[in-house]
């Protein structure tokens, strides 16, 4: 049973093809890792899913219904949220305001405050800093905020774009712990895009390798971790 399915999706920026004929699926309640080098089309795939770029061809189905062609706000309303590459918190707003914006579509105040409690439970640091400007947080804290903001939308599918990028090793472990925790305790399905292949494969249930915009390999996280090809090309073994 998969929550999200991409069939033969292609994305291009003008004449430049970023994603070519990609098919993959995120199993419901599980973590799918999408690994690959810089420019392999990982971020473009996520952008196509969330509706920031329209795929040139192919189908994207979320919970069985087609979502390609919908606008980003409509897709968010259906239950997908994105923690973007480079975190992109609103720098001149407080932590609290960033989180509030994450729950922009949620009109029920009770639900908003319950979700907020949950996020503060996972990220106690954010609670301490809630009135601080987001731009003044450390990289790790900004990453926590970006994930927290995405969770405020109460997604059933969470897209994480390079959550470990540029973080100190100890923060990488912290972020990894939280991703697993959110998936397990909240049952949120996750699509995790990472350059840090080792980390991503360890966390994930299933994984695909993207190369030059195409799926080169797929399998369980375990299988890919032990695959000779992945070890050579991505794990530096």
């Amino acid at each position: 049973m998969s929550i999200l399915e991409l069939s033969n999706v292609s994305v291009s920026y003008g004449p430049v093809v970023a994603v070519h004929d990609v098919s993959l699926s995120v199993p419901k309640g599980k973590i799918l890792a999408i690994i690959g080098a810089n420019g392999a089309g990982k971020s473009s795939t996520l952008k196509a899913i969330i509706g920031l770029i329209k795929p040139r061809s192919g189908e994207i189905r979320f919970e069985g219904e087609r979502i390609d062609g919908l606008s980003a706000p409509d897709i968010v309303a259906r239950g997908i949220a994105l923690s973007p590459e480079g975190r992109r918190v609103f720098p001149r707003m407080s932590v609290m305001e960033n989180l509030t914006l994450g729950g922009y579509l949620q009109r029920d105040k009770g639900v908003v405050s319950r979700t907020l409690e949950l996020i503060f439970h996972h990220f106690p640091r954010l609670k301490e800093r809630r009135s601080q400007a987001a731009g003044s947080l450390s990289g790790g804290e900004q990453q926590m905020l970006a994930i927290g903001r995405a969770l405020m939308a109460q997604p059933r599918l969470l897209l994480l774009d390079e959550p470990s990028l540029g973080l100190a090793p100890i923060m990488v472990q912290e972020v990894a712990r939280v991703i697993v925790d959110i998936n397990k305790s909240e049952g949120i399905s996750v699509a995790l895009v990472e350059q840090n292949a080792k980390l991503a494969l360890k966390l994930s249930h299933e994984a695909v390798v993207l190369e030059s915009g195409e799926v080169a390999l797929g399998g369980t996280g375990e299988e890919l971790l032990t695959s000779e090809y992945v070890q050579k090309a991505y794990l530096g073994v």
Partner: protein
Amino acid sequence: MTGTLIAQSLVNGVVLGMTYVLVALGFTLIFGIMRMVNFAHGEFYMLGAFVTFFAFAQFQIPFIVSLAIAAIIIGCFGMLIERVIFRPFRGNELNGMIAALGLAIIIQNAALIMWGADPKPMPSVATGILKLGPLIFPWSRLYVIGAAAVIIALFYVVITHTSLGRAMRAVAQDTEIALVQGIRAERIYPFAFGLSVALAALAGGLMGPVFGVSPTVGLAPMLKAFIVVIIGGLGSIPGALLGGLLLGIVESFASTFLGATVSDFLLLALVMLVLIFRPWGLMGVREA
């Protein structure tokens, strides 16, 4: 004698400054959110002055209510203009600017045809003076300061404490990421534009009794709003506040003590200094 002159200049400067703040706030808001330089902004000031004039002087509606009517009518008109004229130019800054310039010419000449070129005197809203020891302040000026302060405070609350205000700031800071929060930017733009020109209309209405009303009254405030946002930082709301008050006070003191020519010269010198040493403005965000 000098004390009175200084106090007088200060009050006049704050009156001017408050007007500049009101005009510049809307101007900078639109740039921040839509990346659009609205050259027609001054014409909404002029329209606001006319609506207030008709409501107050002809229909004898109380001044505050007349102002509110002007803000609502011009605000709605602005929303319409945004949808019909500016939407097709989204993402195309240059053509958007040219469209705004064209719109300014159309509105100004339409006003000229409808209402004629002669300035219409608006009756005073408040009369008498406030005496504080040797200092004398006309109530008509204090009234403008008070009303503008209330409007600015309301605007501040809308921007910082409402869902719409937060959404506007989110779109201004990062449009793509705002979309991913579920904010429909296309629905935010008309509100932002309406709010922006309603502020200009309020400024026009407030200054009506001070300067009179004619189809060309929007030109000078528009130019000053430009200077204000360059000094304060394009797209910065605190910058518009600081820049507006600074400009008004400098202008008032310079023209009282040094003459109007020197005053204009000083203002433009100030702009050049800012552009040389802090091109992103006093409160603006430095672009990478």
